[in-house]
Structure formats: C-alpha cells, structure tokens
C-alpha cells in the first residue's frame, strides 16, 4: 500500500516555518470546533474514571 497521502496533504497546507527562521510571529490558534466539543464533555459522567478498573497488562 503506497501511503504517501500525508505528503500530498502537506503540500496543500500553509508553508510551515523553516526551522532556521523561527522569528516571532503571532500564533493563530482559533479553534471554533472546540466549542462543540465542550457540549460532549459536559455529557461525560464525572465518576467515569473512578469506576474504570483494569487488570495490569504489558
């Protein structure tokens, strides 16, 4: 299977900063989808982790 899709997708992305050119710039970190996930988070049972018990694996 020729899995080169990440590279193809990479070509479409905004150019990533050159590691030798790391001067200051304003980070763009707006994430509108995060508001939607808040609704899903509120539905999580607050006690879920306390009830979660597993046996030791490797």
């Amino acid at each position, binding site marked *: 299977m020729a899995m080169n899709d*990440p590279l193809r997708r990479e070509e479409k992305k905004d150019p990533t900063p050159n590691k030798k050119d790391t001067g200051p710039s304003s980070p763009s*970190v707006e994430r509108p989808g995060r508001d*939607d*996930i808040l609704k899903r988070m509120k539905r*999580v049972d607050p006690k879920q982790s306390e009830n*979660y*018990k*597993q046996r*030791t*694996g490797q």
Partner: protein
Amino acid sequence: MSATIPLLGIETEYGIIRDEVDNYDVVEESMRLVRRCEMKSEFGNWAYSRERSHQDMRGFNVRSLAQDEEEDAFCVEDRKRPYSYWEMKSDRVLENGARFYNDHTHPEYSTPECSSVFQLVAHDLAGERIVFECARLRNQDDEPGRVCIFKNNTDYIGHSYGTHDNYLISRRLPFENWVERLVPFLVTRQLYAGAGKVGSELRNDHSFSGLQLAQRSDFIETVLSIETMTQRPIINTRDEPHATQDKYRRLHLILGDANMSPYATALKVGTTRLILTLIGEDKLKLPVTLENPVEDIKAISHDLTGTIALKRTNGKTITSLEIQEFYLEIADKNLSGQCKESDWIIREWARTLDELKHYPEKLADRIDWAIKKDIFTRFIESEGVSWDDPWIKSLDLEYHNIDPERGLYRGLEQTGDLYSMFSKDEVQQAIKQPPEDTRALVRGLAVKHGTNKIKNIHWTGIEFTDGAFIDLSQTITSADLEHLINSKKEQYPWL
C-alpha cells in the same frame, strides 16, 4: 524507506469495560470481543511454539516472567475457568496480516510488519477501527450495558497496559551501543509522543496534580529489563527478533503511550526510526549521558515546557528540549534529502520542538497532551472546576474512547480542526489489505486463500495441514519478498 531499519510494527492493548453493569468479567469481555470479529481470519492457530520470550539481549535466559501479587491472584482464579488458556487467548490472524487476540484481559491489535512510517500509522488506525467494529457488534448482542473501548495505557489507580513500538535492527552492533545512544532520546521523546495524563500514579509521591505529558512514564522503574508487567524498563531486553536470529534484533520498546493522534504516532515512530538509522550506520556519536534517566523520565513528564534541568554524568545539566534538539540536528545533517518520508519527519520534528519552545498553544491541533491541555482548560474555565476534580480525569479517559459518538478525540476529528493524516478510504484499505512490500503480504494472502489448510501461523512462518511450511524469518526486504513469491508461486497459486 530505511534499509537500515527495514521493518516496523506497533502492538496496542486496549482498555475494555461493560458500562452500566456491576461485576462484569473483563477476561470474558475481552475474549468475547475478539471472538465477535467478523473479518476473514485464521482463528485459534497461532504458533506459540515459535515464541521465545524468555531470552534476554544481555545473553542469558530467564526461567519465567514476573507479575505483581494482585495479578498472581487473578491468574489463580483464571485457572478455574471452564476453558483453556489457549481458548481464552482467542487468537486471530487477519487478512491484512495483523494479529488480533485477547492478551490476558485486554484486546490486543498487533499491526502487520510495515516498511514505512505512514504505512504503519495507517495500520495502527485500521486496528482501532477493527476493534471498534467488534465493540459495535458486541453491543448488538442481547446483553445488559454497553461495551466501551479505550485506546490508552492506564486506569489511573496503578494498572497499566502497553503500546509497544517495534523496530528490526541489526545484530552487528553490540546491544550496549544501541542502549547508550538511545536512552536520552527515549526519555525525552514524550515531549511530542506523550498522550497526556491527568494526575500521577507514582507510588511514593502524591504531590503532583494537573496534566502530565505521558501516561506510561510513572510506570518506568529501570533502564533495562526483560519484564513487561513489573519492573518496566526504558528499553526492554527481550531477545525475540521474529527474524533470523544471527542477523537481527527486534527492539521492543514498551515505554510509549497509545496516541489517539496519528500525527503523534508518526512523529514517535518516525523520529525513533531516524535515531536507530543513525546508530545502525555509525553516524551518532555518544550523546549526553544522564545521571538518572529513570527519575528523569518522570520529571520530564511532569514538566510541560521541556525546560526542566536534568543532571548529566559530567556534572552539568541539560533540558529535555535541548536533548531532542541535539538528536534532531544530527538527523537533519545526516538523513535529510534521502526520502520524502524522512524529510517530512525531520521537518515536522523541527516545527514541533520550535512551537513547544515559542508557541506551545499551537501544538493543540496534533499533539495529544497539548490537545488535552487546550480542551480541559476550556472546560475548567467553563464549569468552574479544578484540575483535581474527578470530572477532569473522566474527561481524560473519555478522550481515549474510540467510539466516534462518544470519544473526545474522535469528536474533535469531526470538527475538522485536528491535523489530518489519512482519508477514510486509506484506512479502509489498511483494514482489508496487508502492506504490499513486506512479508505480511504472504501471511495476509494465506489467511485470505488458505482457509482450513493452515495448521499454525506466526510472524516467522506458516505451516499447512499437508506439512508444507513457508518460512518468513528471512523475508525482510521487498527484494526478499519478491524472491519468496517467485519461488513459491507454483506451489501456492494465490501468491
């Protein structure tokens, strides 16, 4: 493709519960989940006789592998079950060349052997989808509650289960050479490979609260050990290459986390492969030596900035970020321009370290712990709770739920603001088809076409009911594969 490190694989043990039911049996649940798989597969014929898990890289054998007292007690009860240990295992080999079975109490998916990092990440995702499909089928059965599956490594009260990354390396170099050059890299790769964990599971230190980088770091107790269930090491010394013994070793790393983010998996495996390539080609001088790497791995996990000072054996100190930059510089100098995949890994490695240093909030589209930090912080501000509230730990667990209707990572995927690696079609392809350029192709085709003719099957070979045997232990490169297929095509027309 790296000729120096020709094969890669990931084994993932999943957490499993039956929600809304008290006193369910986790062994039964794990066993029944694997047995519910409807994919074309060879069932119950894994060749355990070909396993050699007691040989140590340091040149000795151990009589048995250890587990803690609690697990000893569980095993006493397990022996009273009305089925054998082997029936409990419920081994499957799938038509994509993967192994899927019940590893004691956890459904485990071991990818087929892959030759490239992107191929491996696609197969890791394929495993996640296969395991979820089994859970979906189990939830159609007329039983109370609901099976939920978690791709994580802890239950937050001290029980850990593993995600192991594997690399075929040369036996030419002494094992010590690999160890001394790898350890500083491995203890610091959690800066981007850590899946994030709320709270601490250190036995003697309950002072930490909040988010740490990695799930597994609290459980690392020594530098080298053959053990996997207790005394877990930075480098596992099990000497079981699943290939020609005199030519190869399999580096079996058990310190890593299960990443929900395929980008993080790619960076974890990709950077590790680059470092192994440098070592295998004698291009990596002895790096910094840490005074106490076992303590360091925990301290690094508790520092989200990568700036904690780590003691070196020469009396100086160095930060985890500086160690990663040291390795990156050598990889960039020696391996850039060799192939597109390596270039992607080097470029993304550099970008990630740079953003961790200057704009860590930017990592929240692709690095698991940073995504958690972003969404949990938003939740804490929205709900007025603290990091110590049990609700946050429950959110941490739900991040790893692989159900697209419930899991937090799976939910974020649907919003489109995470770094995307593969299309649905590409993952679907990995569910059905083995890699075309590794020995997994022969295994997958044998499963697809050899129904009722396979006596037993393993990473290293396939024995048929007529006594014939296909030896895969020497099929390492694509040229080896081509040679094997040409030599066996007449006998096995499905090849």
